[in-house]
């Protein structure tokens, strides 16, 4: 690309050739324009980063703030408020510094590797039950609706202590919060209010009658205000299900689209751990990217960004950077180490990552054991992406066995 081509901002998100393939722009931008001007769905502009080092640098630098509430920050979505990244819904939770670290550490204790290891047998049992039910209903089946979606919802609801029978409600609220184009401002506000009231009700109930769950313990700890408790519950519920639900479908699709990958895992299930990490790295459909705002001037990737810049970190493009990963364009199930940026980096990196890893490993383990003949029920070219969501995913994953 020449400089003149970059005078006009590129329209973001890019159009996709196929559900599992990266957009052509990634390789071109990494090579020739690592800090690219893009036009967001709101019409506002931001700088898109596609190289590994640049994305990692920005995500790890505390001067870049996570929420875009400054007056000159870019709005992301075309709704009036600018969508989830611009919303002040979670403003009760500290955004950075010691306050954020304290908040985070109160939650992190619930997501330790050991705690996740102790939950794993339960996750596998649930996955087995869901697979059995899917098999009973007959083939072809939608693996996303039968397994990918219900499993993470069940796990996070159980951890929080809210009934997973309400999952259709969560699904709607979460979709409204994370969709950048589909809902009107009024619908978005209504979903936020309903979700807030629902979670407030649970917080009140747990104060009266505590259970053995994360929300009850946070309430009993007395260190968080009611607004913080509600925002924390809402955040964990949304983060805990939409991301992993979509990743289960994408991971299985990536493994089946070239069945030699599936067969390699059948032959050697000890590859499950590195295969999960590689699926996380290789996912070209990770989502919108992570926006950051910086008040002061800063240099990134050889470009000076003025104070008041909004930067969009494309972790999925960074994960395909040949400068960081040998054979970045190939899915290598034995890749190790695999320092992908799918969970972010630095002080805000995903706190649920041990949960996500454990769920993905458990699902893959159960599928390989119970349905070794699993295969796509449609040609790969017929797989469709969910449009407009902050979190990327397939609309369904038709399979047979």
């Amino acid at each position, binding site marked *: 690309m020449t400089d003149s081509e970059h005078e006009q901002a590129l329209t973001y998100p890019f159009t996709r050739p196929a559900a599992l393939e990266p957009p052509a722009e990634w390789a071109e931008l990494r090579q020739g324009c690592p800090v690219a001007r893009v036009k967001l769905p709101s019409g506002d502009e931001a700088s898109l980063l596609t190289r590994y080092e640049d994305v990692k640098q920005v995500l790890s630098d505390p001067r870049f703030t996570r929420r875009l509430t400054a007056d000159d920050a870019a709005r992301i979505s075309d709704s009036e408020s600018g969508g989830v990244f611009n919303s002040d819904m979670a403003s009760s939770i500290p955004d950075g510094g010691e306050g954020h670290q304290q908040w985070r550490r109160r939650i992190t204790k619930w997501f330790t*590797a050991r705690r996740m290891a102790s939950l794993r047998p339960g996750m596998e049992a649930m996955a087995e039950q869901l697979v059995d039910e899917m098999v009973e209903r007959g083939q072809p089946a939608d693996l996303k609706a039968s397994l990918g979606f219900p499993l993470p919802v069940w796990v996070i609801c159980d951890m929080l202590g809210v009934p997973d029978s309400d999952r259709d409600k969560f699904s709607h609220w979460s979709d409204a919060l994370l969709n950048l184009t589909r809902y009107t401002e009024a619908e978005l506000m209504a979903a936020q209010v309903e979700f807030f009231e629902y979670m407030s009700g649970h917080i009140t109930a747990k104060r009266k009658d505590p259970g053995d769950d994360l929300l009850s313990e946070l309430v009993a700890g007395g260190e968080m205000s009611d607004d913080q408790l509600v925002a924390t519950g809402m955040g964990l519920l949304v983060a805990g299900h939409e991301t992993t639900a979509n990743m289960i479908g994408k991971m299985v699709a990536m493994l089946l689209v070239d069945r030699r990958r599936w067969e390699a895992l059948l032959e050697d299930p000890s590859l499950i751990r590195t295969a999960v990490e590689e699926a996380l790295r290789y996912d070209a459909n990770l989502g919108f990217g992570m926006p950051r705002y910086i008040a002061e001037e800063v240099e990134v990737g050889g470009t000076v960004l003025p104070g008041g810049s909004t930067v969009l970190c494309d972790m999925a493009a960074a994960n395909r950077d040949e400068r960081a990963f040998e054979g970045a364009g190939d899915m290598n199930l034995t890749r190790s180490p695999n320092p992908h940026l799918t969970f972010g980096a630095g002080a805000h990196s995903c706190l649920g990552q041990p949960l996500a890893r454990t769920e993905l490993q458990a699902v893959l383990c159960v599928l390989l054991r119970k349905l070794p003949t699993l295969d796509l029920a449609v040609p790969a070219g017929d797989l469709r992406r969910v449009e407009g969501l902050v979190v990327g995913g397939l609309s369904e994953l038709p399979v047979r066995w």
Partner: protein
Amino acid sequence: MKVRVDDGKCCGAGTCVMLAPDVFDQRDEDGIVVLLDETPPERLHATVREAAGVCPAAAIELDENV
């Protein structure tokens, strides 16, 4: 090999514990890293290097000359 961890940087992602549970653990109260074995045996060196390489907070430092 000598391992050092920076519990001020640690973000509690637990990646190191999932990889090398004989070398790393997390505090019960806040999930922050605890170093169990400062000089791990040679058979664990590869996984410890991997843990240091993938730590999202770059909180693990290795001295390979010890």
